[in-house]
């Protein structure tokens, strides 16, 4: 219901709210009256700004990118552009936001579960390829933030789409018990210039000039290693992070882990001749817990049949059922900090090309 100083026109597809001005006070009042926003100030999505955003993308505003549960709102370019303006996006990044929405609404993501679970899961958006430099994403020092407009606003735009189009408001649509900071914004860029391995999308069969990966998981879990000059001791620390009993990966065997290596760690590993696949295989073997420890921790597990069939309590079970579920890429700047991002569990990451 509109407040007295608002005038509502248009139909459901193109509802327009008229407010007296776009002062912070007026916009706060609008957000409060509609239940809109993420709690931070917004840029007013005026008809002019949204038109400019769409004009830059050169696409059909009515083209549907996906349907966003649990509200089952239709994410058209137009609806996504409105949220991108609110988030403070530059028009150059709209194709990235749109690609991320397309990826998120792929069935394998299980977005309905991601949106409505009590788990704190948030979609991480990873930007790859030539658009990283063209649209001024930060793949280097501080890629997870803060300080870069493209990273910050693309991640925020995705959250606003999930809230507004998808209806995932905390307590109504989004049941996350505690939430997590990455629900505000969660976007990085791959550091291909400092990666010893082929660009991540190529490892997923996506050969495009620019691409986006979405992966639904926890906040990053840091691991540091200032001393190791070979892969085993370094990656054993990553494996240690992966073997926490608190993540969903401990009781759901299909879950992925994203291992985001800093350039210096990646160079150390690759300097010993290790490929991306070698890193995956090593972590699959090293990130293990005794069956007894896992079964003591959980009454219920969702394991593939071959894992469930192992009855030796001393057997060391992997934290995921396939080395391919351990996804490896490079991002960040100077220093020796990398991270592991455990999955929500019942979800798979998706990589798609960025295009108009």
């Amino acid at each position, binding site marked *: 219901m509109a407040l007295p100083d608002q*005038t509502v026109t248009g139909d*459901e*597809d*193109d*509802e*327009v*709210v*008229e*407010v*007296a*001005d*776009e002062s912070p006070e*007026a916009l706060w009042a*609008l957000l409060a009256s*509609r239940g*809109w926003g993420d709690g931070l100030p917004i840029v*007013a*999505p*005026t*008809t002019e700004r*949204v038109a400019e955003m769409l004009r830059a993308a050169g696409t059909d505003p009515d083209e549907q990118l996906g*349907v966003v549960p649990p*509200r*089952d*709102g*239709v*994410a*058209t370019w*137009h*609806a996504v552009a*409105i*949220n991108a303006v*609110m988030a403070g996006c530059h028009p150059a990044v709209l194709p990235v936001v749109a690609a991320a929405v397309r990826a998120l609404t792929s069935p394998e993501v*299980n977005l*309905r*579960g991601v949106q409505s*679970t*009590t788990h704190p899961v948030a979609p991480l958006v990873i930007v790859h390829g030539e658009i990283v430099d063209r649209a001024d994403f930060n793949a280097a020092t501080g890629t997870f933030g803060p300080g870069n407009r493209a990273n910050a606003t693309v991640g925020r735009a995705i959250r*606003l789409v999930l809230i*507004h*189009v998808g209806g995932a408001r905390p307590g109504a649509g989004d*049941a996350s018990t505690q939430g997590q900071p990455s629900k505000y914004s969660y976007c990085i860029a791959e550091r291909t210039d400092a990666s010893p391995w082929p660009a991540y999308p190529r490892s997923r069969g996506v050969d495009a000039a620019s691409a986006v990966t979405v992966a639904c998981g926890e906040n990053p879990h840091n691991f540091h290693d200032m001393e190791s000059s070979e892969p085993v001791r370094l990656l054993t620390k990553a494996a240690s992070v992966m073997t926490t009993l608190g993540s969903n990966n401990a009781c759901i065997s299909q879950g992925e882990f994203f291992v985001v290596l800093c350039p210096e760690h990646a160079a150390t590993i690759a300097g010993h001749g290790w490929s991306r696949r070698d890193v995956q295989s090593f972590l699959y073997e090293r990130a293990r817990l005794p069956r007894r420890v896992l079964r003591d921790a959980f*009454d*219920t597990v*969702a394991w593939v049949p071959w894992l469930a069939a192992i009855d030796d309590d001393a057997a060391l079970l992997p934290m995921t059922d396939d080395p391919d579920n351990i996804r490896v890429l490079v991002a960040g700047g100077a220093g020796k900090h990398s991270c592991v991002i455990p999955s*929500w*569990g*019942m*979800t798979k990451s998706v990589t798609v090309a960025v295009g108009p």
Partner: protein
Amino acid sequence: MSPAVRILSPEGRVGSGPAAPAGPVGSLAGQPVAVLDNGKPNARLLLTAIAERLAIRTDAVVSLVAAKATAAEPAEPDILQQLAAARVVVTGSAD
């Protein structure tokens, strides 16, 4: 007085209309009542107890206790088909 600022709603339209609420069930005497366990710990215990209390009060019959394969995904089509035979299904959301 400055002209009004025209702001677009960020919600967009809903793809499919919300399902209409089911009508009144009427008397449950002799009618089948089912339970859909959502896969969360203790859900089966709680939901079955509610269904049994309901059956005692209304002379209904608890005819089926089914479970989703996982809490994180919707119930499978064959489960939904089985549940369709019941007059009332007792289930729950969240933990």
